[in-house]
């Protein structure tokens, strides 16, 4: 799975994938901001956090995403098996409850979980790509080659970069809303931040 991830995941994602590092995206954001400053442009940066990201993943959505990304049925069945076979028990006031099977969420610490999570958030990248393709979302264009950039992901840490137009904000809002409904990842409204650079 690790071997194919770098092919299916969008370039905007930089966590848990071979050959992409944490620092890459930091340098990237830094360069973008610097560029905007130097040409005295304008941009808005919106930082989004998901509430309890791992725990609230919708399984059906995950499996649907896997099918969309071209995993074969056998694989999907395996993953379903992995998800459903797990049982958990909760400590309540110091005493463990009876074991029960969860119906959503990924187990943190599971070696497979990061990759599954990447597949889930790839859904968001997919929507953004569509919006960009249809010309609804206008990113910032950087450098002489005018490479457009609108979103960066590091696992669940997502940043939107776009030019400050009301239309963009509306689009981002609806994208997040859709993604929220589909994947049950709740966008944390308190953690949502918003910057404006001159």
């Amino acid at each position, binding site marked *: 799975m690790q071997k194919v991830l770098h092919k299916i995941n969008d370039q905007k994602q930089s966590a848990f994938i071979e050959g992409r590092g944490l620092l890459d995206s930091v340098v*990237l*954001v830094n360069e973008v901001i610097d560029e905007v400053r130097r040409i005295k442009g304008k941009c808005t940066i919106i930082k989004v956090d998901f509430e309890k990201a791992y725990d609230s993943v919708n399984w059906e959505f995950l499996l649907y995403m896997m099918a969309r990304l071209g995993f074969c049925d056998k694989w999907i069945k395996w993953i379903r098996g992995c998800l459903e076979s797990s049982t958990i028990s909760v400590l309540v006031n110091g005493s463990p409850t009876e074991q029960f099977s969860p119906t959503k969420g990924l187990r943190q610490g599971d070696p497979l979980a990061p990759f599954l999570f990447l597949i889930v958030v790839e859904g968001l990248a997919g929507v953004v790509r569509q919006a960009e393709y249809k010309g609804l979302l206008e990113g910032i264009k950087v*450098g002489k080659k*005018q490479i457009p950039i609108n979103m960066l992901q590091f696992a669940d*840490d997502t940043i939107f970069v776009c030019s400050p137009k009301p239309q963009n904000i509306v689009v*981002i809002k609806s994208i997040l809303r859709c993604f929220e409904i589909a994947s049950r990842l709740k966008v944390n409204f308190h953690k949502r931040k918003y910057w404006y650079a001159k």
Partner: protein
Amino acid sequence: MQNRMIERFSIMLNCTTMNIPFLYLGIKVGANHRKKVFWNDMIINIRKRLSKWKGRHLSFAGRVMLIKSVISTIPLYYLSIFKMPVSVGKIIRKLQREFLWGWGHEGRKIAWVRWEHICRTKEDGGLGVKDLDKFNIALLGKWKWRLGKEEPGLWKDIVLSKYESWRKLDDKKVCSHDSWWWRDIRKICGGGCKENWFDKNIRWNRGIGNKINFWDDLWLGEIPLKDKYLRLYTNSILKKAKLGDAGYWNGENWVWNLQWRREWFEWEKDTVANLMREVEGTTLLRDREDERIWNDDETKVYTVNSAYKKLNKSNGTQQENLFELFWKMKALPSAQYFAWRVIINRVATYDNLQNRGVEVGSKVCVMCHCCDETVTHLFFSCRIAARLWKMCDSWLGLYSVHHNSVEIHFLQFKHLGLSKSCNIVWRCMWVATIWSIWNKRNNIIFRNVKVDVEEMFSLAQVKTWAWITNKYPRASFSYSDWCLCPTTCLNHCDSNHNI
């Protein structure tokens, strides 16, 4: 107007507004890292760590360990992106130094060893503490390496879209569009630094000749052709020519064809012939691309570690062997670190104290009361010390004349060609003896005890026994056996288990 727009947006998204700089993945983004304010958080972080431990409860060895594993590593995350300003580097170094030498509420203490010396590798006589400035440079060099590497990545697309090619780093001039980050990397390993250590360690493998610069890059011989044939270089038309531009394919053969601005004078023709002769032996390869190689025998790829080693190399290397042996030994760390200070003559003996401006009453050695106390005297040539070393000799079954120089004294048995086990015993015993002499000396001064050679010797014996049985898992023998015949003890284990 703008503020109202921001307000409207934030209401639309139901979120809070903030200003640049902000924290992204744990790093402040959008701030100017050349300002000291940028680094304040990190310095506070380090301070917090230090005050919690209160270095005084730890031995010297323990403090070195802490500095190496904790204090030097806190800043690394920031340092792998940003160049640390000199002033910040100074502050951090000061914190580390104060911690190492135990400066606390009582004020300054003597820093016995220069910080640069401590930062050398262990084999080189230092303690292997990271020199953060140099490590910073090595970390940033990685970006230049990665920019020139063939691998996809969004960050690289963006950066290259801004600056075209990683070769632009070698430009002499700064462009006003360059970001601070880019300028710093340029300064560290590009056209901005005087002695370009990065390019010096780059080699090229010939391929189809699409990337290598004929004059600038190191693809033939030991120095770039530009430096070797400066006169010819000034006369060439295409100064930035790639290898592929400097010739043509004639069927299956590659023919070099350099173009010059003018005809050669008679006296220059020899040099031209030399160059052509040198170049003619080589050919391009059609089936692969040019390849960049890092000048490191093992990896061939840039690693921060190998770069740091290259940056941190000192010129004095004659003692290498000594320290290699010294740190291989397994003794009690605090004793071993003390012995290290003895070897480099950085111990608080009377003469050393006086040299550093401390008032000492008498300078006479407290053991023999006849000579001035110096390191060589106290540990080796003093009457008491000499007797102690004699006892060691007879215990180990050796007969030798002891040298007064510290290094040779430590190494002398290596030259005698003794067995491995005997060497192990000797080295541990050496450290233990030094340690017990020093303890005795301090006890005499501060607690008024009497000199007792027998006691010192047996103390060293016990210490060595404890170290060896502890650190070498297969060495198990009783203390009485050990006192009777140490080498047989070790030889016995040696033949059985191969320690």
